[in-house]
């Protein structure tokens, strides 16, 4: 979700809550003889509100699992998740008086910092990465269909090469004859497809089969351009269209590889954020029960 002017209301409300909390906390911290404590009425209030914000933020995941329940738009839940989740950190810090306490509370604080930090990191990624992906991968496809699209590209390329190499031989097709100036003399035309066949077998096909493998020259757009220019010089002009098609296939393959990478960048942080959030909520609940009971 982009952090832009549409977030203004949530930003102002969150800021107001933070200011109010700070205004309440500072005199309280100063006036407490033993320093602020989570067990005090005000500290407990900070803890309850902070934990409530964490629970609300955590409810985004179940909310997403029931997309058609009319319990508020997913967009509103996401905004709440972002801003209230972020607010939970200062509130919990106020709750603990900026002290980490025992092992459980220390673990909780560390978890909270990591969860909020990863969330902020994720928000930044979600702010910038969609634009990067849109600009850099205009040929992107649905992520789940990447493998299928890759297979299609490989099949297309095989077909292009097969059709082109079918023109090989001393008696070439009319198209190949037309490409030669020897037509009127009646001399048979020799079209040699070895450069194309060899380039395809040696460079292009392995690249299409394993595009992420290191050291593939075609993975680099500049090197790829040079290689295709070289192939073009070895083939009759009529086959340049085929070479162009193959070049376009390589370009799409590169974009799909990039899309895959960007997709992982955009979503893999969730592998950290979600489990730790769950752990935080569980441990937070345990901490609340233990603190209130004992």
């Amino acid at each position, binding site marked *: 979700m982009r952090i832009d002017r549409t977030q203004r209301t949530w930003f102002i409300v969150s800021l107001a809550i933070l200011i109010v909390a700070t205004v309440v906390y500072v005199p309280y911290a100063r006036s407490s003889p033993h320093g602020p404590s989570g067990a005090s009425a005000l500290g407990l209030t900070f803890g309850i509100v902070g934990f409530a914000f964490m629970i609300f933020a955590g409810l985004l995941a179940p909310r997403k699992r029931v997309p058609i329940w*009319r319990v508020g738009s*997913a967009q509103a839940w996401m905004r709440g998740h972002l801003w209230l989740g972020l607010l939970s950190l200062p509130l919990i810090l106020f709750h603990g008086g900026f002290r980490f306490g025992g092992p459980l509370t220390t673990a909780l604080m560390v978890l909270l910092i990591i969860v909020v930090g990863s969330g902020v990191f994720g928000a930044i990624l979600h702010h910038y990465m969609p634009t990067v992906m849109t600009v850099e991968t205009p040929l992107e496809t649905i992520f789940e269909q990447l493998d299928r699209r890759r297979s299609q590209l490989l099949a297309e390329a095989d077909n292009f090469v097969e059709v082109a190499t079918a023109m090989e031989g001393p008696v070439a097709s009319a198209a190949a004859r037309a490409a030669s100036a020897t037509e009127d003399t009646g001399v048979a035309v020799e079209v040699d497809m070895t450069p194309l066949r060899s380039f395809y077998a040696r460079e292009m096909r392995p690249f299409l089969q394993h595009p992420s493998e290191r050291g593939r020259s075609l993975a680099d757009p500049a090197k790829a351009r040079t290689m295709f220019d070289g192939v073009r010089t070895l083939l009759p002009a009529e086959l340049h269209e085929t070479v162009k098609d193959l070049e376009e296939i390589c370009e799409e393959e590169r974009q799909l590889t990039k899309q895959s990478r960007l997709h992982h960048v*955009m979503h893999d942080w969730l592998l950290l954020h979600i489990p730790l959030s769950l752990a935080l909520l569980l441990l937070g609940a345990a901490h609340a029960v233990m603190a209130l009971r004992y």
Partner: protein
Amino acid sequence: MSPAGMIELTIDGRKVTVPPETTVFDAARMNGIPIPTLCHQQNETPVGVCRVCVVDVGGRVLAASCVRPAENGMVVSTNSDKVLQARNTLVELLMSDHPSPCARQQNTGDCELETLAKHAGITKPRYPKRTTGRGKDESSPSIAVEFDACILCDRCIRGCSEIRHNYVLGRMGKGGLAGIAFDNNLPMGGSSCVSCGECMVSCPTGALTNKVVTGTHFAEGSDAQPVTVEELEALPVFKGVSGTFLSLNKGAVVHRRYKKGDVICREGEYGSSAFYILDGKVRVSISSPMAHVKTQGGARGFLTKLTSALARRQDDQRDEETDQRFIHIDAPVDLAYENPVAELGPGDLFGEMTCMSLYPRSATVRAETDCTMLEMMRNVLDILQRNKNFRGLLDQSYRKRALDTHLRGVPEFAALTDDFINTLRDKVELIRCAPGTVICRQGDVADSFYLVRIGFVKVSQRHPGGEMVMAYLSRGDYFGEIGLLQGDVRTATCTALDHVELVRISGEDFTRMVDQFPEIRRRLEEVENKRLQENRARLALAQDVPLESFLAQGLMEAQSLLLLDLERCTRCDACVRACAAAHDGITRLVRDGLRFDRYLVATSCRQCRDPLCMVGCPVGSIRRRNSLEVIIEDWCVGCGLCANNCPYGNINLHPFEVMVDDLERPGRKKPMVKQKACGCDLCTNQKEPSCVYACPHDAAHRVDPSKFFAGLLKTTPAIAQRR
């Protein structure tokens, strides 16, 4: 000494005697001396246009033997060096422009020109080919025309006029542009050609050939009995059909016998043949439930699950729900909405649209008694339909049985009285149009009103920037009323999309009808106003926004779009999951589609202004409201053609288990999965579409494209420039 009254001449050193007025060509032929020719046939008047039959008669120039009369004492040389040189040069010139091997040479190896060239040892003409081709005409289902292979011998023209007396073929153009033409240069399929095949038989090259299409012959089996040409010619319906043609298309028509209860074809199935009932009766019905897909639930409680269910129009009235009482099918009868069953008997033809345009079957046909019928393929049906005798029978049957329900099936004509229909019965003209035929042109004087009987008609308007498709009309729709009511010219061009049959009511009869029935006039004027308003709105849109920008991506066709802002979308697919969750696990949305700047136009129904999905529906169950939103009627048979036709993949088939009549065990029912087409319904019972509601990133939006893109282009000149 020659016998009295006979002519004696010498050909290649041989003295021969022939009757007066015999041509040199015939004289040689009668005496076993072959002279090659291309333009001459024994059963046609000689014209001497190809000059291949030139001979030396001792004159200043060589003479065309087919038109040169033999004279007493004439000395003729048919194979001197001078003659051979001239003949070979002619053949070489013809070959230089001939697409060798032509279709005939490829199929049967007997192209007369190529055979001559081979004998003359001409393998590669020295002369250059013409730079631009003369094209092909594929409009006839039975005869292929390749103008490049035409040598302008006129044999086809003489065959058409002298032998068959059809006078369809003629010459057109001059010099290098000269060629054969059908009627006044119409496509062959749209001309008055009766497909007798004489031109094809006469043609010496591959310019006119019998269309050999894969699958034009039925596989013979126990239920398909071959029919001989003689048997066919003995049938009254084939009276007047060319025997030559029938023999060329042998195997494309078979006899089929069905026992009582046998299913002849099922609704929704794809086919390529039509049936003509010789004896017995068949029952035509639609077994798909008369209902549409309705998304329900969700509105009452926030946790209520959405489900898709079938609902009849009586139970679920949608906006502008139709009150159409008859379902138009691919047969000479219409089915009643309440009880979609009818009977056909001897002399009835069904499956015409399936056969001619390869549309799915519109109804299930079951033998009501033991019956016999002819199953025919497209080429044979086309011959029959062009046959005046057969057409007359079909038209008579239509006027007698279907005109009433057809006219009354149009809500605007519901008020017509029996008396008036009876007066129209013999006055209406039933016309056929080949694909691509322009029925009426924008700006022409309005002189007729048309009712679509079979096929689809495209209505379009010209305006700066391109052509705009206004509508597709199918059976039961009509056009031409605006020009007639206004007493003015046509406001749009109407073109046949496929094989179209129309009921034409003359301007005078139309005026009489609207004068006599003020209610019909009022309703037609309402429709006219709506259509004109829609047209004006589109024109205004086209003037506000650069048309090319929208046409380039088809976005202008849309009435409502789901746009994904790619700079906000994290590709999480929450929208797709929400759509699936809202529709029993079947998503009507795929996060893929066209891009317009930073917007992805996701694959979700666009309520197109050019709804290609409507083309070909065998029962006309897809239409749109005045808001242009597509609506699928209760009598959808689930054939899936609309889903295939939609260029954006926006129509889905939703399976439902329903109880249907068991055709094998009459009177009993059995469960069966039936499909119903459905598009995005915008989750109409919800405040906001599920996809938009479920997007956590504020990336999914439903927009009116005309406003959205117009605003975008105005506020962001850079985008307009980039487009």
